[in-house]
């Protein structure tokens, strides 16, 4: 824990109420107090004797919490984790290439939204192509012939169809 040097800390004016809040939340050790309010809280403790009870109560609680045993991981935990990492499957080259295309600043939404939009557009395009009615080639051909050969063509087709009777 960092040493607390009161002379180098900023001195913010801390009220008795705020000092009590700090004691209740962070305890009696100044190194745990919010950095900008440390010196001010100490000054408030000196200034307001009524805070002595709050300080003692915080100290008792700190002793209680200090009773939680220190935890040290097993000696071989780091080795086990390193070994497990060694056996992790390597990322396939195609996935690496795909991830390289995505900017480092991209969020999942900034990737998914354009992909979803592209997917919808492609789907709609395929559906539109499937349902657009085919052009009437026969009618177009007829018009072309009329345009090219005039009424004589029209008469010929009329007679062919048995219209001369």
């Amino acid at each position, binding site marked *: 824990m960092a040493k607390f040097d009161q002379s180098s800390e900023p001195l913010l004016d801390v009220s008795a109420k705020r000092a009590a809040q700090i004691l209740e939340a962070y305890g009696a050790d100044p190194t745990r107090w*919010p950095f900008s309010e440390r010196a001010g809280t100490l000054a408030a403790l000196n200034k307001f004797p009524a805070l002595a009870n709050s300080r003692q109560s915080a100290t008792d609680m700190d002793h209680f919490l200090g009773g939680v045993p220190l935890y040290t991981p097993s000696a071989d935990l780091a080795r086990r984790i390193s070994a497990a*990492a*060694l056996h992790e499957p390597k990322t396939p080259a195609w996935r690496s290439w795909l991830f390289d295309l995505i900017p480092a600043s991209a969020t999942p939404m900034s990737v998914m939204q354009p992909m979803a939009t592209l997917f919808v557009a492609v789907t709609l395009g395929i559906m539109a192509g499937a349902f657009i009615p085919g052009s009437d080639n026969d009618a177009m051909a007829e018009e072309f012939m009329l345009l090219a050969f005039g009424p004589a063509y029209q008469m010929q087709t009329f007679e062919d169809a048995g219209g001369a009777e």
Partner: protein
Amino acid sequence: MTLMATEMEQSATPMSDESDEALMVHICAGERLAFTALLDRHLKAVAGFAYRMLIDTAEAEDVAQETFLRLWRDRQKWRPEAKLQTWLFRVARNLCIDRFRRKEVVTDKVPEQIDPRDGPSADLQRSQSAGLVNNAVAQLPERQRAAIALIYHQDLSNIEAAGILGISVDALESLLSRGRRHLKKRLEALKPHLLEN
């Protein structure tokens, strides 16, 4: 890999002196030595935090292992602007919450019973006190327990702890105050036992 390790050893800056950001650059490139250096630096804190949350050594080490394996597995997705310590504690906390939800961990452990035939050795007394304290902490709601673990046992600043929990500093202080008030009530109830020990 051995040759790469030799080259690294001969490089100007040993891995242990590099910043977290620099180590992450090496890890993203797949360098396992950098991963080992990161483990050496942060494993105890992460495992310790998981222990405070779960009050179970085996579960805590599982959480620590999974946290670091996720870092290694997803290293290609690492964003340079992210803060490693915040990421590690957040992932560890989420893994602890998963275990609570799956009820893999019994959170209300009963302290060891005293055998009257045993003399009141100092070690036994300390162990019993620690058991009572652990039991009291284990009764706290998860968020209060996490707040106290980060501020009190991991010595993080209020801003760092609030960032890990994803809350404002005011909300953090509220959690700390409520947690300490709950513990104070338990302290009052346990005082005779603690005074005996």
